[in-house]
């Protein structure tokens, strides 16, 4: 399912003295099966854009096309549930949305809201709790007795159990330890690859954008300032710093290495392996 934003503008508290323009003239398309990263500095309008992706916010001007539905400014929309089933959002700190007595009930909440039967929802809960790396026993516990990291996984399982076609992730790894971070991102990436799930990743992390995204959209002060492949984006460190962003660690390391060696590699490398290969090629296979 494709999602396409067309000249989206959103003002908070429109028509009051507190009116504030959050995003302006943002257009981009996320095609089915793609992984798109949306990056930007704090306050760049990332979160506002995210809310448009399943019609939680309606643009004050412009339109959003989600599959076969169009959400247009100034038009009343009815029955948005089908959109929300197809586009699942994992919000920042999703553990804050847990409320049920048991983990099982909490995971079933989403699917059952969309008309999935109780048995089916329970099956999904059992399946997804394992997918996020927890054991089945945890299903009977209260979500409030779990650790922060476990709660995060349960909340994510709750969204995944809705089995959306498009998964939107807002800083899914914020506040996790490095290992949890890696596991979590790999799990999402596996879903993306195996299930051809369309993924939209809203993130601060240049590493995540470099590692996983097919396309990167950069927002700066509510406007889209760049759209392209990560490779293209991260080769221009100067422009990135203008937007308050940096380059991934690997690229910084590569630049340092180049400065030390006094020679330039043909292009930027987005992973350690790529960098090693490229560097050994340059030095005629001598470096290891």
């Amino acid at each position: 399912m494709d999602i396409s934003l067309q000249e989206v503008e959103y003002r908070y508290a429109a028509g009051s003295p507190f009116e504030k323009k959050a995003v302006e003239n943002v257009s981009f398309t996320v095609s089915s099966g793609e992984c798109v990263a949306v990056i930007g500095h704090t306050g760049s309008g990332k979160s506002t854009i995210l809310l448009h992706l399943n019609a939680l916010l309606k643009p004050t001007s412009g339109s959003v096309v989600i599959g076969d539905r169009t959400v247009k400014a100034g038009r009343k929309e009815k029955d948005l549930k089908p959109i929300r089933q197809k586009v699942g959002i994992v919000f920042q700190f999703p553990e804050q949305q847990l409320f049920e007595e048991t983990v099982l009930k909490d995971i079933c909440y989403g699917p059952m809201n969309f008309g999935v039967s109780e048995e089916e929802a329970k099956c999904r809960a059992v399946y997804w709790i394992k997918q996020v790396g927890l054991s089945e026993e945890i299903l009977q516990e209260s979500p409030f007795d779990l650790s922060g990291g476990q709660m995060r996984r349960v909340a994510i399982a709750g969204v995944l159990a809705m089995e959306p076609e498009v998964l939107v992730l807002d800083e899914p790894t914020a506040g996790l330890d490095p290992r949890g971070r890696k596991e979590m991102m790999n799990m999402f990436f596996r879903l993306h690859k195996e299930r051809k799930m369309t993924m939209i990743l809203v993130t601060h992390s240049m590493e995540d954008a470099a590692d996983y995204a097919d396309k990167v959209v950069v927002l700066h002060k509510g406007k889209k300032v760049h759209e392209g492949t990560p490779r293209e984006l991260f080769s221009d460190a100067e422009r990135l710093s203008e937007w308050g962003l940096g380059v991934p660690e690997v690229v910084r390391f590569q630049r340092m290495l180049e400065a030390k060696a006094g020679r330039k590699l043909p292009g930027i490398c987005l992973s350690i392996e790529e960098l090693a290969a490229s560097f050994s090629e340059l030095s005629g296979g001598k470096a290891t």
Partner: protein
Amino acid sequence: MMEKMIFGRYIPADSIVHRMDPRAKLIFVFAFIAIIFLADNAWAYGIAAIYTLASIWMSGITVRFLISGLKPVMILIAFTFILQIFFAREGRVVLDLGFLTIYEEGIRQAFMISTRFLLLVFMTSLLTLTTTPISITDGLESLLNPLKKIKFPAHELALMMSIALRFIPTLMDETDKIMKAQMARGSDMSSGPLKDRIKAVVPLMIPLFVNAFKRAEDLATAMEVRGYRGGEGRTKYRLLNWHIRDTMALFTLIILAGILSWMRFWL
């Protein structure tokens, strides 16, 4: 919807009303609430209304903005107006529709009570619109200070108030956030039968409470870590200064009270 509400909100500006001492403003508003009840005829209300409008004008806030921001309160006032019109049964009959009759006294009462209500709402909103929550609590604490002699917990009360005020926007944001998260999971809070809608509130309230308690605990820890031990011997960073304008404001209020009681008791 909530973004438009101005009830209890502060609008930064630099007017004579903004610069007034919060203590003076608090005394002023409470005294005004008492004084307005002295008015008992249209002329008296007229004078009180002019007085209120003049205060609003001095604060630099437009009446139009006040009215648009206080819409929910306006609905309430309209409601009391209608109630009054139909329920007073004194005086000449003005309109007889068979199933309901409207009396002269009813119209009089309706106008007076809704005007009183409106003026009260305007004045109290003026206080919160022109005074930061923190200076309101400072003012309140300082006004209640003499009561400390009879062991009245003035400092604690002021602290409680400032914490409560401080967390209103935080809780509002959080409500919004959790509501959106649950809506993304297919919860529907704005349509369907009433029973379902009430049920849909549970997934909102529980996370909200859990987070509020967690935050309260964190705050208590943070205060303890920084050596908070109550108001004993605590000095203030923001000092309150009583100016001539504060005395003048209260003086005009005394004049208003004089005029209104003259109209009520001697005229």
